[in-house]
């Protein structure tokens, strides 16, 4: 296993995921994921002193969630991620890579409230870390787990979209 190449492939996969999510290209995003993929959005609340799960689901659940989006009324204001991969740890024996990336998610207003006044304005929506796990069994790394660990707990209108 060429560790440098694996690191590069894993890093590029994380950035591809950010691009696909920015584009709301759910199919291509899920194609980066293993069939055993587990996704969760978590946060720690100092208010109730607990780790919380804000959303979670397996591959099938996330696929269904994204399939059903056209049925729902949604704020379509685009989300833009600034993702930086911090660490890539490779377990050669088990063919797994674990990574930590920082992200800042911006929202550029479109139709959320009053488009005439607000459309085009970009605001910071949430910040946190992506904690990812990859399987290295195939040609390309595949996500087997993503934990979106949010620092932000004031989520205002929230979102229907995976973060």
């Amino acid at each position: 296993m060429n560790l440098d190449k694996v690191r590069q492939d894993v890093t590029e996969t994380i950035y591809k995921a950010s691009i696909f999510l920015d584009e709301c290209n759910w199919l291509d995003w899920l194609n980066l994921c293993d069939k055993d993929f587990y996704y969760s959005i978590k946060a720690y609340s100092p208010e109730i002193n607990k780790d919380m799960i804000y959303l979670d689901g397996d591959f099938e659940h996330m696929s269904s969630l994204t399939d059903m989006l056209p049925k729902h009324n949604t704020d379509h204001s685009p989300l833009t991620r600034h993702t930086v991969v911090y660490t890539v740890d490779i377990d050669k024996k088990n063919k797994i890579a674990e990574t930590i990336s920082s992200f800042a998610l911006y929202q550029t207003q479109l139709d959320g409230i009053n488009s005439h006044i607000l459309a085009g304005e970009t605001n910071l929506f949430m910040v946190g870390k992506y904690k990812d796990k990859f399987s290295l069994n195939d040609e390309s790394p595949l996500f087997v787990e993503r934990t979106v660990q949010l620092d932000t707990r004031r989520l205002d209108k929230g979102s229907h979209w995976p973060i």
Partner: protein
Amino acid sequence: MPAKNATQWSSIPGKLKSGEYVDSRIYSDRDIFEEELSKIWRNIWVPVCHESELPDPYCFRTMTIAREPVIVVRGNDNQVRAFLNVCPHRGNMIENRPSGTFESGTPSGAPKHMTCMFHAWQFDMKGNCAHISRAEEGYQDRLKNKDIGLRRLRCEVKYGGFVWVSLNDKIEKSVEEWLQGAFDCMQHSIDAEPLEVFHYHKAIIPCNYKLWHDTNSEFYHDYLHYHNRITGFNDSYFARQCKGFDNGHVNVGSFEVQYDQYEGFESREELSFPHLPANHWEMIDLFPGMNFNLRGSALRVDLMTPLGPDKVMIEYRGLGLKSDTEEQRLIRQRHHNSIWGPFGRNLHEDLVAVSTQQAAMNEWADERKILHGRHENETIHDEVGMRHFYDEWGKWMDRWPGDPELTYDQGLKKAA
């Protein structure tokens, strides 16, 4: 029918009568908002947190009611008490954190005391002043510990372990008397065993608090929610009965939700709340702005803090049973989040709708009539919940909701 000109637009449409509409100014006028804070929010019982957020003696939570900073503490006698979070010396807020414990000391103060960091005055969990820094040197015999203390607020723990606080020392009704049976539909379920908060998030949105409460008071807006239509919209859904209680509270009656009709969702029958029939759904809307929502496996509670005529903070809590196993808790969280979490199907839709509603009736807009005129034998798409609320609102404010320039009695006479 043709679109309306300005005169027609501001007049009462069709055969709707007084009481079946409100004036949009009640959602946007700054003076009305200030009156609501002083006449209503300072004089009622407000559920501020849950007792599980204060698990041990010396634990605390901080919050705001009608702009007053409040702190709730659990004493070493295990009793929960509420105080103004204000030091009697120079008016500083004593505690800035959202929660924590006074078990250990702070940089300015001793363990097991509330310490104002400014001049290190300290108070015990009953609000007594325990220490004034350099008291004799500065005050001689003019001011002693016994002369000063925290402002204690009326406080009760009731209905599923919620902590209720009132800024009004003279409030005549207990929490039970104030609620007048509104909790009967779910009390058996939420008082069966101790509950625990597993979810917390907040939203600050540009809308009047009453618009959010209206959304919780009527289900005609299920046209907004694909999930509710596909899992409801059957005979038993349309037979759900709304029931009004004294003091403006409303219960929206239950029915069996068909969760598995929504692709990817599952029935909640395996993990219902105690004494709640499988997949059933009880909801209580409390005047002036709290919502208790028991859906199958999870309890959701919305607590509002009005911040301005066009701004509100909503704290969302999800609760399960303290006795939940890890697996049960994960299931409850998933059920709760799928609909009510910040990334759930329904909550985002509701928040978008009320934000755009307020945008269309800001304080500079022409006043208009907001229709609350649906009558359907007080069933689920009847707007009786809102009419009940605004009748109560009118009495508290001495304003007629249909025309807030009239007093309540003037409006009543005109309606007759």
